[in-house]
């Protein structure tokens, strides 16, 4: 238990146990971050292999089958297992600090969400070593995946089922946290934009993941237990998968991009040294994007043959999303306008993000035009479009926020100079890779092909595109080097690292103690840290309560055990169609472990523990020296 005020140097075993059982949102945030970086690196490596294959025509660097596996795993991993956990990392680490909470609403579920995600991701990646990865694309359309031989698709279905449950649990947790755990005075319309976008994106998770769960379940029972949802000879219909997948899949894009918007809405006002322009319209636009995000899924299916009426409705709804997004872009520009701009690493990512993301958005509106989409469908134009949105929007936000929030998360700093070099290498590489792919698409190059014939006018652009991909890889390596170097930097040990912090998290003296706030803060207005600084408050915080005992949740190993139970059961299900005798017992044992852990959780009281005032004072003295947090 972490209530020991003056912590002694702990052994490796104790530290490991601490991380396996922790329910602290800051530690879980760090774990999400590193798990996300790991899978980001794996998926990036897969992309690099594909770009090397496509560098020259008629290449035989990798085979067609392996190419299908790589493109499937690249897409699946990047969306589910890299971007999502990286953003969850920041949400976990920052949102409770932004709203003045000591932890999330359900710390136990927070830990469960992480372990489900991680073991699901691990399960999916075991496919590489156990007979081949999934090979039907990240969308895994039933007409392709239903009869895909081997166990690849089964790994996809079961792995995503487990990690999707984790994501849903975390989403519920964030919603409840933001509704109930806000400090006194932190009204909804004083919440920082990152908290707002976390709330909306968690609501999207809430409504988008159940259809995925259902779709994956249909696929699971169709492939492993002989059901007939997608088999048309038995009355099934493969289009059901496409609908369920995209009812999830389109909101998924907003689930990822809204927090990215939120992160940039935090970064831009700080380094423009100006209040965020149009705060309420930003909130409104966030909600509107979240709402409209559920009305547009069928624009991925224009060519399926739903008929002109359905296509027209979905085309118009899709175009309508450009309106709130445009509001946001103008608000960012008007925040920068007339500001006293300080170009730091997070800020230069933000400045690079705006034009890149606008480019991705504009091609999105082009594709929303259903007749044009018939031309562009399944071409490299699509690939260029969504990489502009995802890399230009989400990945730049993640890189920017790593620099921006590193001091709060680790009490260390990332190197600025190396950061700038990383930005330029990555940014130029990104545009080299994907800008030309628009034209490749317009010239007719289809996506998801493992090679192409020479002399169709595609050779040069593909070559340049691959060079760009190598530059992006170098950029990522530089970022990892920066992270490793940060271990050696001196601790920050002060408030408001950037000097112009506006929201509550910057008011906290670093390193952040495990209880976050020794006294619950009183929020007296929008941008509380800025407000208190303006009034000359050296502590940058007004308190809502006197110094007293602090109630904290207990650590628990049960989330890990529950997740391991499902992990074991998944192997039983995976080998069920092979007719092995042990498959059903393994399913029963795995589910039994999970259920027993749940029952244990249910009947065993967990009241948490109290940190007494003396311990709080001792902790503060240990962290900040004599006199404590002054």
């Amino acid at each position, binding site marked *: 238990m972490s209530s020991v005020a003056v912590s002694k140097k702990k052994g490796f075993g104790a530290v490991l146990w601490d991380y396996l059982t922790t329910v602290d949102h800051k530690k879980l945030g760090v774990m999400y971050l590193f798990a996300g970086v790991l899978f980001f690196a794996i998926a990036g490596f897969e992309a690099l292999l594909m770009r090397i294959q496509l560098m020259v025509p008629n290449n035989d660097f990798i085979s067609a089958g392996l190419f299908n596996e790589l493109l499937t795993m690249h897409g699946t991993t990047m969306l589910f297992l890299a971007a999502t956990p990286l953003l969850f990392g920041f949400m976990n680490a920052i949102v409770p600090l932004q709203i003045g909470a000591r932890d999330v*609403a*359900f710390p136990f579920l927070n830990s469960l969400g992480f372990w489900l995600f991680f073991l699901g991701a691990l399960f999916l990646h075991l496919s590489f070593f156990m007979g081949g990865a999934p090979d039907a694309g990240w969308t895994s359309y039933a007409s392709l995946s239903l009869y895909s031989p081997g166990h690849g698709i089964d790994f996809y279905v079961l792995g995503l089922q487990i990690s999707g449950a984790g994501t*849903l649990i975390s989403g*519920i*947790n964030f*919603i*409840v946290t933001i*509704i*109930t*755990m806000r400090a006194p005075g932190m009204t909804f319309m004083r919440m920082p934009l990152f908290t707002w976008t976390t709330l909306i994106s968690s609501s999207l998770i*809430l*409504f988008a*993941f*159940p*259809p995925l*769960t*259902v*779709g994956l*379940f*249909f696929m699971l*029972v*169709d492939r492993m*237990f*002989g*059901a*007939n*949802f997608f*088999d048309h*000879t*038995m*009355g*099934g*219909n493969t289009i*059901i998968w496409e609908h*369920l997948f995209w*009812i999830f899949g389109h909101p998924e894009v907003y689930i990822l991009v809204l927090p990215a918007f939120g992160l940039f809405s935090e970064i831009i006002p700080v380094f423009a040294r100006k209040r965020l322009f149009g705060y309420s319209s930003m909130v409104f636009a966030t909600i509107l994007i979240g709402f409209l995000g559920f009305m547009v899924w069928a624009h991925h299916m224009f060519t399926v043959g739903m008929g002109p009426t359905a296509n027209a409705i979905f085309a118009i709804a899709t175009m309508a999303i450009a309106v709130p997004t445009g509001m946001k872009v103008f608000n960012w520009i008007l925040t920068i306008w007339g500001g006293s701009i300080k170009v730091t690493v997070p800020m230069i990512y933000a400045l690079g993000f705006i034009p890149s993301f606008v480019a991705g958005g504009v091609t999105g509106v082009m594709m929303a035009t259903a007749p044009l989409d018939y031309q562009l469908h399944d071409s490299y134009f699509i690939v260029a479009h969504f990489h502009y949105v995802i890399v230009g929007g989400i990945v730049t936000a993640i890189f920017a926020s790593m620099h921006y929030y590193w001091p709060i998360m680790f009490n260390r700093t990332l190197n600025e100079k190396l950061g700038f070099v990383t930005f330029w290498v990555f940014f130029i590489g990104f545009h080299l890779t994907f800008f030309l792919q628009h034209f490749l698409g317009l010239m007719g190059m289809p996506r998801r092909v493992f090679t192409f014939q020479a002399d169709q006018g595609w050779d040069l652009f593909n070559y340049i595109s691959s060079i760009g991909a190598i530059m992006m890889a170098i950029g990522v390596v530089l970022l990892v080097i920066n992270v490793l170097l940060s271990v050696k930097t001196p601790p920050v040990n002060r408030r408001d690292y950037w000097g112009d912090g506006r929201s509550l998290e910057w008011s906290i003296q670093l390193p952040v103690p495990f209880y976050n706030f020794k006294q619950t803060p009183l929020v007296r207005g929008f941008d509380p840290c800025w407000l208190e600084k303006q009034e000359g408050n050296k502590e940058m915080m007004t308190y809502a309560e006197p110094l007293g005992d602090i109630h904290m949740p207990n650590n628990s190993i049960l989330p890990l055990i529950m997740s391991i139970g499902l992990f074991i059961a998944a192997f039983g299900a995976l080998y069920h169609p092979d007719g092995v005798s042990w498959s059903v017992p393994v399913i029963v044992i795995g589910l039994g472990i999970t*259920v027993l852990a749940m*029952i244990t959780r*249910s*009947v065993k*009281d967990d*009241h*948490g523990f*109290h940190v007494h005032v003396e311990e709080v004072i001792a902790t503060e003295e240990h962290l900040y020296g004599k006199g404590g947090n002054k």
Partner: protein
Amino acid sequence: MEETKFTPQTWPNHAEQATAEGKNKFVGIWIFICSDIVLFASVFATYLSLRNQGPAGMEFSTQSLFELPLAFVMTMLLLTSSLTSVYAMYHMKNYNAKGVITWMAITVLLGLGFLGLEIYEFRHYVHIGFGYTQSAFSSAFFTLVGTHGLHVIIGLVWITCLIFRNAKRGLSLYNAPKFYAASIYWHFIDVVWVFIFTVVYLMGVLG
């Protein structure tokens, strides 16, 4: 943490929300139900598009398969169990621990009765050849009704755990939100069944 002893006079009006944890649980169960609604909506939509769909010349249809009397009895059992869980919550408001346990136990018994009939019904269908793998219709039917049945089982295990854990130790601000959340969940299962009765059985038999 020592638990405060209450009397019916000092017992707070909304005991389930009297603590921060209780409030979190209260909001949390409602948010969870929102996502569960979408889950059922997806399965309902699939069922509606696949019902009566099967291999060429399939002999089974909703008209030939479903029987309203059995579905009616199951509906009444579940609706009554919802009512008894309301009684339990009524006794919780009055700080009557024995009343809570008794009525929750009756809720579990009614739920078990429902589950027994559902198992009987499923066995009957399998017996006449309408198994899970028979057609798209059968897969969709068993998945929809079975998903509801799984929710019933989870609810029964949950409430049973609560009863055994709290049978001897009275009500507190720690266990009141747990009972409350379980009863909200139980109502939700009941509402879903009303839709299943309408969409699957009523619309299936009558047209």
